[in-house]
């Protein structure tokens, strides 16, 4: 056991950090800077980070979920308004189904509450769906019931809608027909989908860790310079303890999220799902609390649109809901101890 990042992994983290530090939105107004957004998107495209889960010879992914998580954490920390989660999850579906690269920017469609992938029955999505992380995407993958398993289908996407997360817009998909992808070689089974769930949970955990890191840095920086009663508010224990708790929550989240990312490719599917569920419950609870602290430390300014604190909170709320937040994941943890059932927490 040695859970330190390798030299290559550290270099990957540094590269992602540099990209978001240079090209991420430094302010809320910066979110509307189309030139900057295009540069960030170009940098992410050039890096190849969206292709980490595409297959190499033999079908294994180009990189493990740990590398995906490393990038996701940095993009979350820097509030990167460039697609990553959606394309990564789409690539994982295509890899498992043996489907060729889309050739166009693509994401995934989830149920309206984001708790599971959208699934078409008899070629129709009866209730529609939501395409997440859809900036620049022209289509979204959905599952299609296919005998005892699942095939992949695609739905064309309309215009981006901003929605909850100001950095990763979602697109609502109306009730519609779905066309099956051509040339997919493998029907997806529950094991495939379980591992895909684990990946989605682990990547959103990493995003939440990054968000927490960014929010703590933002709030700590403010507390160091904002003065009241003739002293910076960061010198007051009441404020210090809020920020200390936020830092500690972030560190605990980082530890459990790192294990979840490792587990995706290293453990049997059921164990990986428990690791991911434990991590998601922990990180989701922590992230909401940390982002709320960031708003609180900023006082009145924290409750205005122009303060970045709510951008972190909004991004955290979206990542939380992807494959479920606290309740559904605590339920998964209990189920792994043989305590599943209809005494649900949801």
């Amino acid at each position, binding site marked *: *056991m*040695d*859970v330190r990042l390798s030299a290559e992994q550290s270099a990957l983290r540094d590269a992602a950090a540099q990209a978001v530090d240079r090209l991420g939105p430094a302010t809320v107004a910066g979110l509307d800077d189309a030139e900057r957004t295009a540069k960030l998107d170009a940098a992410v495209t050039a890096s190849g980070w969206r292709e980490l889960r595409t297959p190499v010879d033999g079908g294994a992914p180009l990189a493990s979920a740990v590398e995906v998580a490393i990038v996701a954490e940095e993009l979350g920390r820097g509030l990167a308004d460039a697609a990553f989660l959606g394309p990564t999850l789409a690539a994982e579906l295509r890899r498992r189904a043996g489907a060729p690269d889309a050739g166009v920017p693509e994401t995934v469609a989830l149920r309206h509450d984001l708790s599971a992938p959208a699934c078409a029955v008899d070629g129709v999505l009866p209730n529609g769906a939501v395409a997440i992380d859809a900036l620049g995407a022209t289509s979204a993958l959905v599952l299609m019931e296919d005998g005892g398993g699942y095939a992949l289908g695609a739905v064309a996407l309309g215009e981006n809608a901003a929605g909850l997360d100001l950095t990763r817009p979602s697109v609502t998909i109306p009730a519609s027909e779905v066309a099956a992808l051509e040339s997919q070689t493998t029907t997806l089974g529950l094991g495939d989908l379980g591992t895909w769930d684990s990946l989605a949970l682990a990547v959103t955990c990493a995003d939440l860790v990054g968000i927490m890191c960014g929010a703590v840095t933002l709030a*700590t920086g403010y507390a160091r310079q904002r003065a009241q009663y003739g002293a910076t508010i960061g010198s007051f224990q009441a404020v210090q*303890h809020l920020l200390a708790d936020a830092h500690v929550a972030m*560190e605990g989240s980082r530890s459990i999220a790192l294990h979840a990312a490792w587990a995706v490719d*290293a453990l049997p599917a059921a164990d990986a799902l428990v690791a991911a569920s434990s991590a998601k419950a922990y990180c989701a609870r922590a992230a909401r609390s940390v982002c709320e602290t960031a708003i609180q430390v900023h006082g009145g300014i924290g409750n205005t649109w122009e303060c970045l604190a709510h951008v972190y909170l909004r991004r955290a709320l979206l990542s939380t809901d992807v494959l479920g937040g606290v309740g559904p994941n*605590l339920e998964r943890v*209990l189920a792994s101890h043989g305590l599943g059932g209809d005494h649900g*927490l949801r």
Partner: protein
Amino acid sequence: MDFADSPDEAAFRQRLREWLAHNNPGLPPSSTSDEYWAAQAGWHERLYDAGFFGLSWPTAVGGHGLPSVYDVILDEELIAAAAPPRPSIGYLVQGLLEHGNEDVQQRFLPGLVNGRDRWCQGFSEPDAGSDLASLRTRAVRDGDEFVITGHKVWTSYSDQAEWCLVLARTDPDVPKHKGISAFAVPMRQPGIEQRPLKMINGITREFGEVLFDGARVDAANMIGEPGEGWRLAMTVVSHEREPGELGYVARYGKLANELAHVVGADPAAFGPEQRRDLAWALVEVEMLRCHVSRRLSDRLGGLTHGPEGSVDKLLMTSTEQAVGHAALSVGGVAPAGGDDTWLRVYLYSRAQSVMGGTSQIQRNLVATRILELPTS
């Protein structure tokens, strides 16, 4: 980045698992009964004699010189076997390793590590709790000895200890942090009076106070240089804050799994709130296990102890107290008496945010030393 065992680690895990299958004493949770404390010394000796304790300490003092991550394997297997946790003496070992001279290390560490000598820690005093540096116990030179006079409190396991690591003021004329020295004081002598303290969960064998009234200690039992006591104390308490050093993950894991079995035995009897409390306990234990893996991996590049220990301590506390809340919720409070094990687990969990430095002190350290916020 790999949480998996190397071949050597896997072989060690297998040997340990086989040994535990036949050598688990099945003691009750450590925090809830005097019976555990009475049997703890025997467990320490058996674990050590079988080659499964002192894994990461130097071979010269009876350790195995293995990488620090072996302690994670030990904790994980103790959880899986529902065995008692490993003895929590790492902070004392580190204090002697980092501050004791060759003579002190050779005389004291082997017995501490192999469990034949039991130790307690005489740091806190009635008027020196969080403000430890204001301690008033005095050590006055008398020939080849020092004479110790003072009142120590919260001295865990003092009734079983042969030795006490005592902080005492040797120079009253210098600033308070600089006049403190540390001694290994033999406990079985006239001039030392012990008074057990009954904790809120009813146990009497863990907590105590010790009165030194002219107790004598050989000058060669000073640990470190005169005036080095404060630095030694900081070494000890920073290790005392680390769950990797204490091995409490195994205790929490055992308790959480036992609570899961309580629910599993009669699922219909437990509602959503109780299930939620149990789930949080399981998740917190998993978090702490992963966190210890991460922190002990960091040590593979060299031993460090800094303000990060305060982060560890706060995470350890949240885990123990989540387990405590699950014990309260799932195990119940035994309102009419009888088996109140789970009530005792809950009540004991309240001590974790005080012992080894309160959570408020830890937050001060995180804020000022990690987040670099200004001191007021």
